[in-house]
């Protein structure tokens, strides 16, 4: 959806509120360039149109939170909670992301080309997350639906209390959280993973990944499992 013109919003001159207000009023198909973000919080949040937004530098907390339909690209690192509660659309971070990337997100695609910190995909509810590097501890914690792809290593307690999200890791997993187990990589999983990697513009070999998911022992309280919580 290449737009004919790109509107520049320079945060050295305008406020984040000005930016978000302009984006909320913008029509689908328009293209936006955000200069001098300097790690400001809440950039491009709550978008509902098919916009193409490029943030030219590091973003602070909750960048592209609650996104619907828009494509947001951060040319830098992103702070805590990038694409939190995203519904649809695409968020791409060219650098690394801080904690809780894609938290509670229901849909869309979040690509982090660098590393993601702790609790990446916490309580994910349908989003697809592809991380080019490593993820921190307790990633996919309480994940309920969606797919988390980690091309690097995963930290401690991966998938703790996981429900139905699928987790693919290419590198080393430091430890698995309660009720998270390694699962067989069948043909349909290889196909699914290949599709996800492709959508993130990556050429990693799906066969090099391992799959993790829920053992489904924590769905209902059983006293025999109490030590696992």
């Amino acid at each position, binding site marked *: 959806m290449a737009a004919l013109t790109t509107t520049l919003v320079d945060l050295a001159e305008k406020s984040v509120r000005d930016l978000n207000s302009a984006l909320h009023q913008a029509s689908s198909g328009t293209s936006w360039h955000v200069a001098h973000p*300097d790690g400001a*919080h809440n950039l491009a949040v709550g978008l509902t149109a098919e916009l193409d937004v490029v943030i030219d530098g590091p973003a602070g*907390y909750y960048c592209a939170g609650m996104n619907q339909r828009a494509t947001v690209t951060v040319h830098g*690192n992103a*702070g805590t909670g990038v694409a939190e509660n995203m519904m649809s659309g695409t968020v791409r971070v060219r650098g690394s992301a*801080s904690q809780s990337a894609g938290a509670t997100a229901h849909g869309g695609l979040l690509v982090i080309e660098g590393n993601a910190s702790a609790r990446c995909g916490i309580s994910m509810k349908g989003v697809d997350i592809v991380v080019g590097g490593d993820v921190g*501890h307790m990633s996919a914690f309480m994940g309920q639906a969606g797919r988390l792809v980690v091309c690097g290593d995963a930290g401690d307690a991966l998938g703790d209390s996981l429900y139905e999200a699928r987790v693919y890791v290419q590198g080393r997993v430091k430890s698995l959280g309660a009720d998270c187990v390694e699962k067989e990589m069948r043909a349909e999983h290889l196909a699914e993973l290949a599709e996800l990697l492709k959508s993130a513009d990556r050429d990693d070999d799906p066969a090099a990944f391992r799959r993790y998911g829920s053992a489904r022992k924590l769905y209902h309280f059983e006293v025999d499992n109490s030590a696992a919580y």
Partner: protein
Amino acid sequence: MCGIAGLQVRDPSLEPRLGELLTGMLHQAAERGPDSAGVALYGDARLTPPGHSAVSLLAPGDASAAEIAALVGGDTAAVTVSQSVVVHSPGLPVADLERAVRAAFPTAVVTGRGTDLAVLKGVGHPDALAEEFGLRAATGRQGIAHTRMATESAVTPEGAHPFSVDENVCLVHNGSFANHATIRRELRAEGVAFDSENDSEVGARFVAAQLAAGHDLEKALRLLCERFDGFYTLLVTTGDTFAVVRDAIACKPAIVAETDAWVAMASEYRYFAHLPGIESARIFEPEPAEVYTWQR
């Protein structure tokens, strides 16, 4: 919440700009803690002339700097900065100067002591306090700053950070300790006196006790991790060391940026955005329960 900012300068040509750079960091941290703020400056010759010992205290009443210096006696001088006073002496060892200050002002709260450390803190908006501190003009090798949103104790100058309870050692904390009352009781039983009901002061007193027992700062912080429950990101400095540690859950934010010219730590990236060379800095988030140290 609370906001933490710290900068250790490696390139001496940046030393004249320490205060200016720290002011920018503190300004960004203000949103995380608007009720009080404080800074610790290492090597600011205005407050701690080279070769002098220095003691920082909360300003005792309305006495002028000259009156304070006269009361402490000897060849001391004093500088009043906002709600703090820094007393310095060319002749006395640090411990003797502290004794003289305490004898002159038995009820005053001593907030720092060392050979080149000044601690300034108070209640108020961080931007207003930075102005009162004259922070923009400060110089030196290392500085840390804290903006507080009080959760565990009252908003008082005593409860503001940094906490400096051992020579040249300073601690700032974002988070809350769950078992601070227990540890305070234990330390009190060992004879340790406290200046406030603040949970972070317990962390500082604990670190000081470990250092006094002969451990280095890295070991002291590892022991703190074993003993303290709760949420914490801590930045702890000595005359030449800059250390960062987070709890095992890593609930509270922390980010580190490093270049050949400086190392900086903050609660959020945007505190760094104005630092020289930030575009090419190595930036990372500290791992949970791991102690990071940088020596100057």
